């Protein structure tokens, strides 16, 4: 339950957010993508209640984050961009302390088990690997059973298995009705997790849609590559790949190293960001 209309944020003469409109429904996973300096952090920190805005209307769970109440803070979960746990505390102490701040916390043992930290309960946060510290950060964000969860680059430093485990937990949380707002530089993560993706460039939303159709890339050309019997490479870009491939096959040529590729979310993202930067 996130509603943003005409959000403006300025730092001196620089406009970081320029009339941003955004909505996220309960249970929806929304990924915010954009290059560094695009305004993602300003947007997320305004929604989290850390920063004031200059103009526009913002509501998170029906509350203006610029006037946060204690009860509202008990309904959101925040995973900051960098690790923020006292390194001298053990994993169990950190999660135990945070769990006592909420009315209906996730049982710490169960949470640590789900995030693969059960074996580290007596280890100090400062001696954990980067990926495990990040999982501890995630545990602290989840321990209050939030209704809106902000995840700022949640799987940075994770190995592939830990990343997939974390995606599973985020999916479970969203399936329970929690709205998840995710920023990430991993396009694969956005494609895997998000129900919807928005791309922010220069403080404006330049694309908003399903990860599979973002920027209209499903309608974009498919690329057919193969090598002719003479060894000469051939490339066909077409919006009707089946017909194009059938036409080539009818010529009776043997198609070496045949590949048919569709544009990925990354291709669409790079095209969007590149065209905006060029503009």
């Amino acid at each position, binding site marked *: 339950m996130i509603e943003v209309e005409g959000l403006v944020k300025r730092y001196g003469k620089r406009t970081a957010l320029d009339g941003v409109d955004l909505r996220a429904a309960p249970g929806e996973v929304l990924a915010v993508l954009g290059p560094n300096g695009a305004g993602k952090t300003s947007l997320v920190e305004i929604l*989290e209640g*850390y920063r004031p805005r200059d103009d526009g209307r913002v509501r998170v769970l029906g509350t203006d984050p610029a006037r946060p109440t204690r009860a509202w*803070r008990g309904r959101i979960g*925040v995973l900051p961009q960098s690790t*923020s746990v*006292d390194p*001298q*505390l053990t994993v169990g102490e950190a999660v135990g*302390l945070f769990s006592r701040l909420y009315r209906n916390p996730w049982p710490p043992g169960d949470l640590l088990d789900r995030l693969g930290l059960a074996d580290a309960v007596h280890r100090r946060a400062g001696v954990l690997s980067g990926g495990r510290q990040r999982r501890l950060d995630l545990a602290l964000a989840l321990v*209050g059973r939030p209704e809106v969860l902000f995840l700022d680059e949640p799987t940075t430093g994770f190995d592939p298995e830990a990343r997939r485990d974390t995606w599973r937990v985020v999916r479970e949380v969203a399936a329970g009705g929690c709205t998840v707002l995710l920023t990430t530089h991993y396009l694969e993560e956005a494609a895997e997790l998000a129900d919807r993706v928005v791309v922010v460039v220069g403080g404006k939303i330049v694309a908003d849609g399903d990860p599979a159709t973002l920027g209209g890339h499903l309608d974009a050309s498919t690329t057919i590559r193969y090598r002719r019997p003479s060894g000469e490479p051939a490339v066909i870009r077409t919006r009707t790949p089946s017909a194009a491939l059938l036409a080539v096959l009818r010529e009776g040529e043997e198609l070496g190293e045949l590949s048919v590729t569709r544009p990925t979310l990354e291709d669409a993202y790079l095209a969007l960001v590149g065209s905006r930067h060029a503009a």
Partner: protein
Amino acid sequence: MLRELCLYQIRLYLRSPRALVASAVTPPLLMVMLAAISDHRAEPGYHARLVAAMATLGIASTCYTTFAASLVASRDAGVLKRLRATPLPLWQHIAGRVAATTVVALAQTLLLAVLGWLLYRDWPPMLPSAVFGAVTVSLIGVAVAQVVPRGDAAATLLSTTLLPVVLVSGVFFPASELPGWVGVVSEASPLTHVGALLNAFSWVDLAWLLGWSCAALAFALWRFRVEPEPPRATGRVRLAG
């Protein structure tokens, strides 16, 4: 919750004890040295006043320098920002940290007083009033931490502000003997009243500490920052060559 936060902070102090050990060891060492070289050591009540002065120094070191530096370090590490996004009220957060620092400072004061008793058979008559001093100086530590931009500036800023205050607060020279404007500054200094309260109870000293506590708490709540000050966007210093 206050108890949990207090225990949490004490745990952090005990697990990273270097600064605490330094602030606990310096006052007894100075006490022994000053007692050995002072011309006034034969005067009645001298050792009780010396223990009170060194206890004041210990309270200042723990509750101001060590505490404010740890708060700035927590801010730099993102811990304060993280806690601000939870339902924990700011006043409880400050109260938990101040309570923990007060407990540690009282333990150090008690150890110093016991050492004073063992060596000189004398100690300050109003030892329990150290609690007022520890709370006041801790609140001043929270307030000053809000004007420290980042951890790299903390050590310099905190030590350079503490030293002159200690010098005019009757720790090394009797406050009553300080002349002119130095005497006026001394009268306004919270440490003067921390030391005076250890020697004899006075409503005036207590009122001074209460005033300092209220001012420091109000400033801390008004200016409490959960993030370090960002570096300047452009450099103003031009290096030759």
